[in-house]
């Protein structure tokens, strides 16, 4: 089972990690561990965000003022650093999504429908 997941995992496209983080935070403030779990769950266990990419990304987004951080207690009474979207972050997310949709459509147009696997 673990092996299977690993094989299906896709390398994240450059720049898409920011998009995924911002999208995740659209649903409410979340800590780093929570973000990585949410992305994994919502991608059907396909996308596993490396901590070595996640934390630099979070700190970078905070420097760009798209997210803000705050120490809070979780439901399990664990102190953790929660990240939340700012108004600027929301705008950025909207821009990134628009770009992403355009890109997906464009690529789909080039690729055409998936050819039937030959029997």
């Amino acid at each position, binding site marked *: 089972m673990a092996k299977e997941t690993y094989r299906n995992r896709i390398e994240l496209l450059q720049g898409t990690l920011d998009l995924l983080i911002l999208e995740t935070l659209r649903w409410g403030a979340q*800590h*780093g*561990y*929570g973000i990585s*779990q949410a992305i994994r769950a919502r991608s059907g266990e396909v996308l596993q965000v*490396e*901590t*070595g990419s996640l*934390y*630099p*990304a979070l*700190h*970078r987004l905070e*420097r760009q003022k798209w997210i803000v951080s705050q*120490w809070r207690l*979780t439901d*399990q009474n*664990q*102190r*953790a*650093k929660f990240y939340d979207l700012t108004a600027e972050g929301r705008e950025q997310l909207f821009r990134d999504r628009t770009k992403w949709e355009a890109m997906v459509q464009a690529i789909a147009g080039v690729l055409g429908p998936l050819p039937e696997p030959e029997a």
Partner: protein
Amino acid sequence: MSIWQRLFRPEEGKADLDAEIEAHLAMAAADRRERGAGQEQANAEARREFGNVALVKEVTRGAWGGMWLERLAQDVRYALRQLRRSPGFAASVVGTLALGIGAATAMFTVVDHVLLANLPYAHPARLVKINEGAEMRLLVPYLDIAAWRERARSFEGIAFYGERKDHNYIEGRNATTQVKLTQVSGNLFPVLGVAPQLGPGLKDQPESFARRGETHTVVMNDVAWRSLFGADPVILGKVVRVDDEPYTVVGVMPRGFFFPSAYELPQLWTPIELDPKDQGRTFDAPRYTAVARLKYGVSLATAMAELQTIQKQVARAYTDPDDRKDRSQLSLESYGASLQDKSTTKALLTLTAAAGLLWLIACVNATNLLLARSTVRQREMAMRGALGASRGRLIQQLIVEGLLLSGMAAAFGTALAMGTIVLFSHLPQMARLPIETPATVNLHVLVVLAALTLASAIVSSAWPAFLAARSPIEPALRQGGQQSGVSRSQHRLRGGLVISEIAMSLALLAACGLLLRTLYALRHVPLGFRTDHILVANMAVPTYRFTALNAADEIYEPLLERVQHLPGVDAAGLMTQVPLGHTFTVMLGLADGPGAGITSQFKAVSPDLQRVFGFRMLAGRYFNAGDTAAAEPVVVVNRSFARAFAPKEQDMGKVIGMKLLSLSRDRENPTPTTIVGILDDFHQRAVGEPSQPEIEVSLPQVTRGSRFYDVLETVAMDLAVRTQRSPDEMVSSLGAALRKASPELADSNITTMDQIVEDSYGSQMLAARLLEIFAGSALLLCVAGLYGLLAYVVSQRTREMGVRFALGAQRGDVVWLVMRQAGSLVLTGIAAGTALAFVSDRLVRGYLFGVTAHDGWTLGAVAAVLIVSGALAAYLPARRAAGVNPVEALRAD
């Protein structure tokens, strides 16, 4: 996390990140425990999933930005630790560089003060000064200026001013003070783009002359307003007395303003009144200097071309063919440049080049020291490389060390430079530099200092850093021992650096030697007069009072009487201008009669002057007490003048008795003077320049009725006194005598004749003094460099020396071995330096007197100095090599 926080509170951010990751691991482990894993297993799995905690922290911190800053701070901390560990090395590098940077900074401070000074005018770069004539700068009559104003399109405005050489006085609240007075056109201040801080200023009429009734208005500078009138806020409209005439104050210029040249004492400007002669171009029409402002975007060359075309037509209006020829040419120069003394400018640029050379020598020396150091640190560098430091990172670290060293050197160098400037300004006058510079670090100097620091670091440490980072890691780590040695090429490199130091030092020493010989030659030129035990007072003659009376009997005669009876005075005499004085030179061109066409220096003197200066008579007599106004008018000429009539020495006597110019104003009844004596030549303008023809008249015979009275007696007069004791002791009693004779004379400048002669060496003196310092420092540096290299080589070769001794070499052989190496370096350096000196002699050629630029003796002496210094530098290492104990040397590591 701001960069500020990162730099100064790095621990806070790190703790925050640690806590964040700790929380991540705790939550991951908690999830796993919930799914049923044991405590141990959950923790381990969480950790495994997280990955390399240290690495994640590192890359996350990288996202904060300013990582380079943190690295830099680390490098600086490390470099400081390195320097503390080897203070001797740090001190020698910092000292070396401080010397170079200090010399260059001091030089630049002077250049900045003298050449780059900011003029207190709006857009000073667009101001130009216009004179007629190509080689000679001729002053311009008003009609020509009016023609330019009418036709030229290149200028926004053309103003003009009249030069006044006389002394002017203003009555302040408490005392009468000497002021500098300039008569200016009404549009001068608008053309300069400066408005008065108080009042409307001078009225600007269309022709820019003052109307009748407005001529007695005056604008004063801030200094005059504050020091003479206590910054009176309601001074406008008040009447002040200038040269005993009433003037209405119409303006006070802003602080720092000066015109026509830099002046820090009270200064006044009055308007020019239109003279009927201003409407002509005759020889006696008033002449002015024109100052114009170029229109925006118009270049000097364009304006020059336009004005030149106009001037071709203007010049036709001159009836005299010589005038027409002379005045068909123009000279146009930027106003800033016109204020600078050309010879000082040249001297300063030459000396800046010399200071630059010294700086380069210092950098080369520092490079050599750093190279030696990098050999010692080879293992450290190899170890860091082995632990994963990249080459770029190693170079960065070494450059940071270099920057730190040169930064410290810059601090010391600046202190050194400012200290030197202050020291020079406090030296007794005889040894002082002819240029006064305030020891302040302004923005220009700071910029240059920063550039020097950076350049010093790069020049001195880039190469060693590059070499250190490039050297392969493995052999350095394997060999280990102290005697691992360095590559042949590095030895050659360091030798080459020492050679280049010696060569550059030789060029500096040669220049210095040539100038010292020049000074020696100048000091041994027979001047034609004595200079010892003479005190000279350059009198501040109150022109306005002296034109109204007969100064010869009413002021000068009683003054001489008083001074002659001062205790300690042998003789006292008066002369319009003493030899080598640069106060007020009267030139007389004889138009007709005997001597027509000769231009001579023209002076009024008192009979006792010959006793003061000891002028030698070739024939006839000097003036005596009998040459009074009532007696027959007589003149004395010098040999240069007499030569026109008697080319042969033995014919000089024939000149005696010849009739010359008339002193009287009456053209109808001229009373020609008789030549009664011929003086031997003496140097009037400069020691290095030949004598000019000279005509002297007897002071009592130039009465107020004489046509030469105003120019010879009421503008300038020098009092020369022969003293029995040291002249310095007489200064105060002479000053008191002057004050008693006339209160205005208290402002007179009193100095010794020796000082006047010394001052006349001007730029040669300046160049020689500074080159002595530069060349001396260069010599010191290259001796230190040579010593450093040899000492290092000897320490590297201890084992080899041991082997040599073991094989039977004598001490002498080993000493010879080291000395031979030193000798080859010094000789190669001298050869290269001689070539360099031949190329660079152009720099000093203009200052030489009595010695050629390629003087073999000077070069030989300089080479000898270098050889002796080289031998001294080599002797200590050689003796150490000879003192090596073979047993210990071979046993060591």
